[in-house]
Protein backbone atom coordinates (compact mmCIF):
# COMPACT_ATOMS: atom_id res chain seq x y z
CA UNK A 1 0.00 0.00 0.00
CA UNK A 2 2.78 2.44 0.96
CA UNK A 3 4.59 1.56 -2.20
CA UNK A 4 1.50 2.34 -4.30
CA UNK A 5 1.08 5.70 -2.55
CA UNK A 6 4.71 6.59 -3.21
CA UNK A 7 4.28 5.81 -6.92
CA UNK A 8 1.13 7.93 -7.17
CA UNK A 9 2.83 10.85 -5.41
CA UNK A 10 5.91 10.58 -7.61
CA UNK A 11 3.74 10.57 -10.73
CA UNK A 12 1.88 13.64 -9.49
CA UNK A 13 5.09 15.54 -8.80
CA UNK A 14 6.42 14.64 -12.24
CA UNK A 15 3.25 15.93 -13.90
CA UNK A 16 3.52 19.20 -11.98
CA UNK A 17 7.15 19.59 -12.94
CA UNK A 18 6.46 18.99 -16.64
CA UNK A 19 3.53 21.38 -16.58
CA UNK A 20 5.59 24.10 -14.95
CA UNK A 21 8.33 23.62 -17.51
CA UNK A 22 5.83 23.93 -20.36
CA UNK A 23 4.46 27.10 -18.83
CA UNK A 24 7.96 28.51 -18.46
CA UNK A 25 8.75 28.13 -22.18
CA UNK A 26 8.20 31.38 -24.12
CA UNK A 27 5.44 31.34 -26.68
CA UNK A 28 6.85 31.59 -30.20
CA UNK A 29 6.96 35.14 -31.47
CA UNK A 30 4.47 35.76 -34.27
CA UNK A 31 5.68 37.80 -37.21
CA UNK A 32 3.12 38.97 -39.72
CA UNK A 33 4.27 38.97 -43.34
CA UNK A 34 2.02 40.45 -45.99
CA UNK A 35 2.39 39.69 -49.69
CA UNK A 36 1.14 41.62 -52.67
CA UNK A 37 2.31 41.74 -56.25
CA UNK A 38 5.39 42.01 -56.15
CA UNK A 39 6.57 42.66 -52.62
CA UNK A 40 6.67 41.18 -49.16
CA UNK A 41 6.17 43.46 -46.16
CA UNK A 42 8.40 43.38 -44.26
CA UNK A 43 11.02 42.48 -46.83
CA UNK A 44 13.64 41.97 -44.12
CA UNK A 45 13.05 39.88 -41.00
CA UNK A 46 15.52 39.76 -38.12
CA UNK A 47 15.57 36.65 -35.92
CA UNK A 48 17.72 35.16 -33.20
CA UNK A 49 19.23 31.75 -33.71
CA UNK A 50 17.27 29.23 -31.66
CA UNK A 51 14.29 31.54 -31.21
CA UNK A 52 11.04 29.80 -32.19
CA UNK A 53 8.81 31.93 -34.39
CA UNK A 54 5.53 31.69 -36.22
CA UNK A 55 5.20 33.48 -39.54
CA UNK A 56 1.65 34.56 -40.23
CA UNK A 57 1.35 34.96 -43.99
CA UNK A 58 -1.36 36.88 -45.78
CA UNK A 59 -1.85 38.14 -49.32
CA UNK A 60 -3.48 41.42 -50.23
CA UNK A 61 -4.32 40.39 -53.76
CA UNK A 62 -3.71 37.04 -55.49
CA UNK A 63 -2.59 33.53 -54.60
CA UNK A 64 1.13 33.56 -53.72
CA UNK A 65 3.77 31.30 -52.26
CA UNK A 66 6.27 31.84 -49.45
CA UNK A 67 9.45 29.80 -49.65
CA UNK A 68 12.47 29.89 -47.36
CA UNK A 69 14.53 27.09 -48.92
CA UNK A 70 17.45 27.20 -46.48
CA UNK A 71 15.13 26.16 -43.65
CA UNK A 72 12.77 23.94 -45.63
CA UNK A 73 9.91 26.32 -44.85
CA UNK A 74 7.23 26.99 -47.46
CA UNK A 75 3.53 27.68 -47.65
CA UNK A 76 0.92 28.71 -50.13
CA UNK A 77 -0.62 32.09 -49.31
CA UNK A 78 -4.31 31.96 -50.05
CA UNK A 79 -6.37 35.17 -50.31
CA UNK A 80 -8.54 35.70 -47.25
CA UNK A 81 -6.90 32.94 -45.26
CA UNK A 82 -3.91 33.72 -43.02
CA UNK A 83 -1.39 30.88 -43.20
CA UNK A 84 0.88 30.08 -40.25
CA UNK A 85 4.27 28.39 -40.44
CA UNK A 86 6.34 27.68 -37.34
CA UNK A 87 10.06 27.11 -37.29
CA UNK A 88 13.18 27.74 -35.24
CA UNK A 89 16.24 29.04 -37.10
CA UNK A 90 19.13 26.74 -36.27
CA UNK A 91 21.85 28.66 -38.11
CA UNK A 92 22.98 32.26 -38.37
CA UNK A 93 23.36 34.20 -41.58
CA UNK A 94 21.37 35.98 -44.24
CA UNK A 95 18.87 33.88 -46.17
CA UNK A 96 16.56 34.60 -49.07
CA UNK A 97 12.82 34.05 -48.97
CA UNK A 98 10.79 34.36 -52.13
CA UNK A 99 7.44 33.99 -53.78
CA UNK A 100 7.51 30.65 -55.58
CA UNK A 101 4.17 30.93 -57.36
CA UNK A 102 4.60 32.88 -60.60
CA UNK A 103 2.54 36.03 -60.21
CA UNK A 104 3.54 38.32 -63.09
CA UNK A 105 6.23 40.57 -64.45
CA UNK A 106 7.69 41.49 -61.05
CA UNK A 107 7.67 37.90 -59.76
CA UNK A 108 11.42 37.48 -60.19
CA UNK A 109 12.13 40.31 -57.75
CA UNK A 110 9.52 39.32 -55.19
CA UNK A 111 11.79 38.23 -52.42
CA UNK A 112 13.17 39.27 -49.04
CA UNK A 113 15.89 38.63 -46.52
CA UNK A 114 15.89 36.71 -43.28
CA UNK A 115 18.75 37.84 -41.06
CA UNK A 116 19.54 35.41 -38.24
CA UNK A 117 22.06 36.50 -35.57
Amino acid at each position, binding site marked *: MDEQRRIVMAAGLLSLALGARALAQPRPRTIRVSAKRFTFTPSEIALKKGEPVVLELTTEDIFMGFNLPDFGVRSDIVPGKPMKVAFTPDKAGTFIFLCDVFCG*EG*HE*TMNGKLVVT
Partner: protein
Amino acid sequence: MTIDRRKFLQLAALGGGAVFASSLPGCASLGGSSGGDDFYFVQLSDSHWGFEGPKVNPDARGTLPKAVAAVNALAEPPDFIVFTGDLTHTTDNPVERRKRLGEFRDIVSGLRAKTVHFMPGEHDASLDRGKAWMEFFGPTHYTFDHNGVHFVTLDNVSDPAARLGEEQIAWLAADLEGQPKDARIVVLAHRPLFDLAPQWDWATRDGAQAMELLMRHPNVTVFYGHIHQENHHMTGHIAHHSAKSLMFPLPAPMSQPRREPLPWDASQPYRGLGFRDIEAEDRGGKLTITELPVGKA
Protein backbone atom coordinates in the same frame (compact mmCIF):
# COMPACT_ATOMS: atom_id res chain seq x y z
CA MET B 1 27.42 16.53 -94.28
CA THR B 2 28.97 16.16 -90.84
CA ILE B 3 32.46 16.92 -92.09
CA ASP B 4 31.25 20.13 -93.72
CA ARG B 5 29.58 21.23 -90.52
CA ARG B 6 32.64 20.45 -88.44
CA LYS B 7 34.83 22.41 -90.82
CA PHE B 8 32.41 25.30 -90.60
CA LEU B 9 32.47 25.27 -86.80
CA GLN B 10 36.25 25.06 -86.72
CA LEU B 11 36.52 28.01 -89.09
CA ALA B 12 34.00 29.99 -87.08
CA ALA B 13 35.98 29.32 -83.91
CA LEU B 14 39.22 30.37 -85.54
CA GLY B 15 37.67 33.47 -87.05
CA GLY B 16 36.04 35.12 -84.10
CA GLY B 17 37.01 33.17 -81.03
CA ALA B 18 33.36 33.37 -80.08
CA VAL B 19 32.50 29.80 -80.85
CA PHE B 20 33.66 26.91 -78.80
CA ALA B 21 32.86 23.28 -78.72
CA SER B 22 32.35 21.39 -75.53
CA SER B 23 32.24 17.67 -75.61
CA LEU B 24 31.74 17.25 -71.93
CA PRO B 25 33.21 14.12 -70.44
CA GLY B 26 30.51 12.14 -68.80
CA CYS B 27 28.02 14.87 -69.49
CA ALA B 28 26.96 14.17 -73.00
CA SER B 29 26.85 10.49 -73.60
CA LEU B 30 23.76 8.86 -74.98
CA GLY B 31 25.26 5.42 -75.31
CA GLY B 32 22.84 2.59 -75.70
CA SER B 33 20.63 1.20 -78.41
CA SER B 34 21.88 2.29 -81.76
CA GLY B 35 19.03 3.28 -83.98
CA GLY B 36 20.05 5.57 -86.80
CA ASP B 37 22.49 7.97 -88.39
CA ASP B 38 24.28 10.95 -86.95
CA PHE B 39 22.13 14.03 -86.77
CA TYR B 40 22.15 17.42 -85.18
CA PHE B 41 19.61 19.76 -83.73
CA VAL B 42 19.63 23.32 -82.44
CA GLN B 43 18.40 24.53 -79.07
CA LEU B 44 17.05 28.07 -78.81
CA SER B 45 15.65 29.43 -75.56
CA ASP B 46 14.30 32.37 -73.64
CA SER B 47 13.73 34.96 -76.36
CA HIS B 48 11.32 36.89 -74.09
CA TRP B 49 9.67 38.57 -77.07
CA GLY B 50 8.00 41.76 -75.81
CA PHE B 51 10.60 42.54 -73.16
CA GLU B 52 11.68 46.16 -72.97
CA GLY B 53 14.77 47.35 -71.12
CA PRO B 54 17.37 49.33 -73.02
CA LYS B 55 19.97 48.98 -70.26
CA VAL B 56 19.72 45.23 -70.56
CA ASN B 57 19.16 44.84 -74.28
CA PRO B 58 18.88 47.94 -76.50
CA ASP B 59 18.22 45.63 -79.45
CA ALA B 60 15.27 43.81 -77.88
CA ARG B 61 13.34 43.64 -81.13
CA GLY B 62 16.36 42.80 -83.22
CA THR B 63 17.96 39.99 -81.26
CA LEU B 64 15.53 37.18 -82.12
CA PRO B 65 15.61 37.99 -85.86
CA LYS B 66 19.43 37.96 -85.61
CA ALA B 67 19.29 34.52 -83.99
CA VAL B 68 17.03 33.27 -86.76
CA ALA B 69 19.51 34.61 -89.31
CA ALA B 70 22.41 32.97 -87.45
CA VAL B 71 20.66 29.59 -87.44
CA ASN B 72 19.84 29.96 -91.12
CA ALA B 73 23.51 30.74 -91.80
CA LEU B 74 24.67 27.37 -90.42
CA ALA B 75 26.49 25.38 -93.07
CA GLU B 76 23.84 22.67 -92.99
CA PRO B 77 20.28 23.11 -91.75
CA PRO B 78 19.63 21.23 -88.51
CA ASP B 79 17.44 18.15 -88.53
CA PHE B 80 15.13 20.06 -86.22
CA ILE B 81 15.08 22.88 -83.70
CA VAL B 82 13.86 22.88 -80.10
CA PHE B 83 12.78 26.05 -78.34
CA THR B 84 12.85 25.51 -74.58
CA GLY B 85 10.42 28.13 -73.35
CA ASP B 86 9.91 31.77 -72.48
CA LEU B 87 9.27 32.50 -76.12
CA THR B 88 7.58 35.69 -74.93
CA HIS B 89 7.91 37.99 -71.95
CA THR B 90 5.02 37.87 -69.51
CA THR B 91 2.14 40.31 -69.59
CA ASP B 92 -1.07 40.51 -67.58
CA ASN B 93 -3.00 41.45 -70.70
CA PRO B 94 -4.37 38.36 -72.53
CA VAL B 95 -4.66 40.32 -75.79
CA GLU B 96 -1.06 41.50 -75.58
CA ARG B 97 0.05 37.95 -74.67
CA ARG B 98 -1.48 36.62 -77.88
CA LYS B 99 -0.02 39.49 -79.87
CA ARG B 100 3.46 38.62 -78.61
CA LEU B 101 2.98 34.90 -79.26
CA GLY B 102 1.80 35.70 -82.78
CA GLU B 103 4.73 38.01 -83.50
CA PHE B 104 7.13 35.43 -82.15
CA ARG B 105 5.60 32.73 -84.33
CA ASP B 106 5.87 34.97 -87.40
CA ILE B 107 9.55 35.67 -86.77
CA VAL B 108 10.57 32.05 -86.14
CA SER B 109 8.58 30.90 -89.16
CA GLY B 110 11.64 32.16 -91.04
CA LEU B 111 13.83 29.42 -89.54
CA ARG B 112 15.14 27.05 -92.18
CA ALA B 113 14.31 23.75 -90.52
CA LYS B 114 11.78 21.09 -91.29
CA THR B 115 10.50 21.01 -87.74
CA VAL B 116 10.57 23.25 -84.70
CA HIS B 117 9.45 21.78 -81.38
CA PHE B 118 8.22 24.40 -78.93
CA MET B 119 7.88 24.35 -75.16
CA PRO B 120 6.38 27.04 -72.93
CA GLY B 121 8.16 28.92 -70.17
CA GLU B 122 6.54 30.45 -67.12
CA HIS B 123 6.47 33.83 -68.85
CA ASP B 124 4.37 32.34 -71.64
CA ALA B 125 2.09 30.10 -69.67
CA SER B 126 1.97 30.55 -65.90
CA LEU B 127 -0.62 33.34 -65.77
CA ASP B 128 -3.26 31.47 -67.78
CA ARG B 129 -2.09 27.87 -67.29
CA GLY B 130 -0.89 27.69 -70.89
CA LYS B 131 -4.22 28.60 -72.50
CA ALA B 132 -2.91 31.21 -74.97
CA TRP B 133 0.30 29.29 -75.65
CA MET B 134 -1.63 26.15 -76.61
CA GLU B 135 -3.74 28.15 -79.07
CA PHE B 136 -0.54 28.87 -81.00
CA PHE B 137 1.67 25.84 -80.42
CA GLY B 138 -0.50 22.92 -79.27
CA PRO B 139 0.21 20.53 -76.41
CA THR B 140 2.70 21.63 -73.77
CA HIS B 141 4.16 18.16 -73.18
CA TYR B 142 4.67 15.43 -75.74
CA THR B 143 7.22 13.02 -77.17
CA PHE B 144 8.86 12.52 -80.53
CA ASP B 145 11.52 10.22 -81.91
CA HIS B 146 14.38 10.98 -84.23
CA ASN B 147 16.97 8.56 -85.60
CA GLY B 148 16.76 6.23 -82.64
CA VAL B 149 16.62 8.90 -79.94
CA HIS B 150 13.47 9.31 -77.87
CA PHE B 151 12.70 12.93 -76.97
CA VAL B 152 10.39 13.80 -74.08
CA THR B 153 9.27 17.38 -73.58
CA LEU B 154 7.98 18.24 -70.12
CA ASP B 155 5.86 21.17 -68.97
CA ASN B 156 6.97 22.47 -65.58
CA VAL B 157 5.57 25.97 -66.07
CA SER B 158 1.83 25.90 -66.83
CA ASP B 159 1.29 25.33 -63.13
CA PRO B 160 2.38 28.68 -61.66
CA ALA B 161 3.73 26.77 -58.66
CA ALA B 162 6.31 25.12 -60.96
CA ARG B 163 5.02 21.59 -60.65
CA LEU B 164 4.79 18.90 -63.28
CA GLY B 165 1.79 17.52 -61.44
CA GLU B 166 0.68 13.98 -60.74
CA GLU B 167 -1.00 13.54 -64.11
CA GLN B 168 2.09 14.48 -66.11
CA ILE B 169 4.38 12.40 -63.90
CA ALA B 170 2.10 9.38 -64.47
CA TRP B 171 2.21 10.12 -68.21
CA LEU B 172 6.02 10.26 -68.06
CA ALA B 173 6.16 6.97 -66.14
CA ALA B 174 3.96 5.28 -68.74
CA ASP B 175 6.05 6.66 -71.59
CA LEU B 176 9.33 5.52 -70.05
CA GLU B 177 7.83 2.13 -69.29
CA GLY B 178 7.32 1.65 -73.00
CA GLN B 179 10.96 2.36 -73.83
CA PRO B 180 13.75 -0.24 -73.91
CA LYS B 181 15.88 -0.12 -70.77
CA ASP B 182 18.86 1.25 -72.70
CA ALA B 183 16.87 3.64 -74.89
CA ARG B 184 18.62 6.87 -75.82
CA ILE B 185 16.46 9.51 -74.16
CA VAL B 186 16.66 13.31 -74.33
CA VAL B 187 14.42 15.29 -71.99
CA LEU B 188 13.53 18.88 -72.83
CA ALA B 189 12.06 21.25 -70.26
CA HIS B 190 12.06 24.91 -69.34
CA ARG B 191 12.96 24.90 -65.66
CA PRO B 192 15.71 22.74 -64.21
CA LEU B 193 14.39 19.41 -62.96
CA PHE B 194 16.81 19.55 -60.03
CA ASP B 195 17.28 22.12 -57.25
CA LEU B 196 19.82 24.35 -58.96
CA ALA B 197 18.99 27.41 -56.82
CA PRO B 198 15.56 27.27 -55.17
CA GLN B 199 16.38 30.64 -53.57
CA TRP B 200 16.20 32.10 -57.07
CA ASP B 201 13.23 29.98 -58.12
CA TRP B 202 15.53 27.83 -60.26
CA ALA B 203 13.90 24.51 -59.52
CA THR B 204 10.85 22.35 -60.21
CA ARG B 205 8.88 21.64 -57.06
CA ASP B 206 8.23 18.00 -57.92
CA GLY B 207 11.20 17.58 -60.27
CA ALA B 208 12.67 14.90 -57.99
CA GLN B 209 9.79 12.60 -58.90
CA ALA B 210 10.58 12.94 -62.59
CA MET B 211 14.26 12.40 -61.91
CA GLU B 212 13.50 9.25 -59.93
CA LEU B 213 11.76 7.83 -63.00
CA LEU B 214 14.53 8.92 -65.35
CA MET B 215 17.29 7.52 -63.12
CA ARG B 216 16.10 4.01 -63.96
CA HIS B 217 17.33 4.56 -67.52
CA PRO B 218 21.07 4.59 -68.16
CA ASN B 219 21.10 6.89 -71.22
CA VAL B 220 19.35 10.15 -70.41
CA THR B 221 20.36 13.76 -71.06
CA VAL B 222 18.33 16.85 -70.14
CA PHE B 223 18.36 20.19 -71.97
CA TYR B 224 16.57 23.13 -70.42
CA GLY B 225 16.37 26.95 -70.36
CA HIS B 226 15.09 29.40 -67.73
CA ILE B 227 18.42 30.48 -66.22
CA HIS B 228 19.73 32.41 -69.25
CA GLN B 229 23.21 30.95 -69.21
CA GLU B 230 25.14 27.81 -69.92
CA ASN B 231 25.25 25.48 -66.95
CA HIS B 232 26.17 21.80 -66.70
CA HIS B 233 25.15 19.59 -63.82
CA MET B 234 25.08 15.88 -63.10
CA THR B 235 22.41 14.00 -61.16
CA GLY B 236 24.05 10.61 -60.90
CA HIS B 237 24.56 9.51 -64.51
CA ILE B 238 22.13 12.11 -65.94
CA ALA B 239 23.54 15.34 -67.38
CA HIS B 240 21.57 18.58 -67.37
CA HIS B 241 22.57 21.36 -69.79
CA SER B 242 20.97 24.80 -69.63
CA ALA B 243 20.96 27.15 -72.60
CA LYS B 244 21.71 30.82 -73.05
CA SER B 245 18.95 33.36 -73.60
CA LEU B 246 18.15 35.38 -76.69
CA MET B 247 17.29 38.50 -74.68
CA PHE B 248 19.47 38.99 -71.58
CA PRO B 249 21.92 36.92 -69.55
CA LEU B 250 21.47 36.27 -65.83
CA PRO B 251 24.22 35.95 -63.21
CA ALA B 252 25.64 32.59 -62.14
CA PRO B 253 23.48 30.85 -59.54
CA MET B 254 23.65 32.62 -56.15
CA SER B 255 26.68 34.64 -57.29
CA GLN B 256 25.17 37.93 -56.18
CA PRO B 257 22.46 39.02 -53.74
CA ARG B 258 19.77 39.51 -56.37
CA ARG B 259 18.87 37.65 -59.52
CA GLU B 260 18.88 40.56 -61.92
CA PRO B 261 19.68 40.68 -65.64
CA LEU B 262 23.29 41.47 -66.42
CA PRO B 263 23.62 44.93 -68.00
CA TRP B 264 24.32 45.35 -71.70
CA ASP B 265 27.99 45.86 -72.45
CA ALA B 266 28.29 48.23 -75.41
CA SER B 267 31.91 47.14 -75.91
CA GLN B 268 30.73 43.53 -76.31
CA PRO B 269 27.15 43.65 -77.64
CA TYR B 270 25.12 40.43 -77.32
CA ARG B 271 27.67 39.03 -74.87
CA GLY B 272 26.18 36.10 -72.96
CA LEU B 273 23.43 35.53 -75.52
CA GLY B 274 23.39 32.67 -77.94
CA PHE B 275 22.12 29.28 -78.93
CA ARG B 276 23.59 25.83 -79.27
CA ASP B 277 24.11 23.10 -81.78
CA ILE B 278 23.86 19.53 -80.47
CA GLU B 279 25.28 16.76 -82.57
CA ALA B 280 24.15 13.23 -81.82
CA GLU B 281 26.54 10.60 -83.06
CA ASP B 282 25.18 7.19 -83.79
CA ARG B 283 28.35 5.36 -82.81
CA GLY B 284 28.59 5.42 -79.02
CA GLY B 285 25.67 7.77 -78.80
CA LYS B 286 27.86 10.74 -77.98
CA LEU B 287 26.36 14.23 -77.87
CA THR B 288 28.61 17.12 -78.77
CA ILE B 289 27.46 20.58 -77.75
CA THR B 290 28.67 23.67 -79.57
CA GLU B 291 27.75 27.08 -78.21
CA LEU B 292 27.14 29.70 -80.90
CA PRO B 293 26.73 33.47 -80.62
CA VAL B 294 23.58 35.30 -81.59
CA GLY B 295 25.44 38.24 -83.02
CA LYS B 296 28.86 39.72 -83.15
CA ALA B 297 30.32 39.34 -79.68
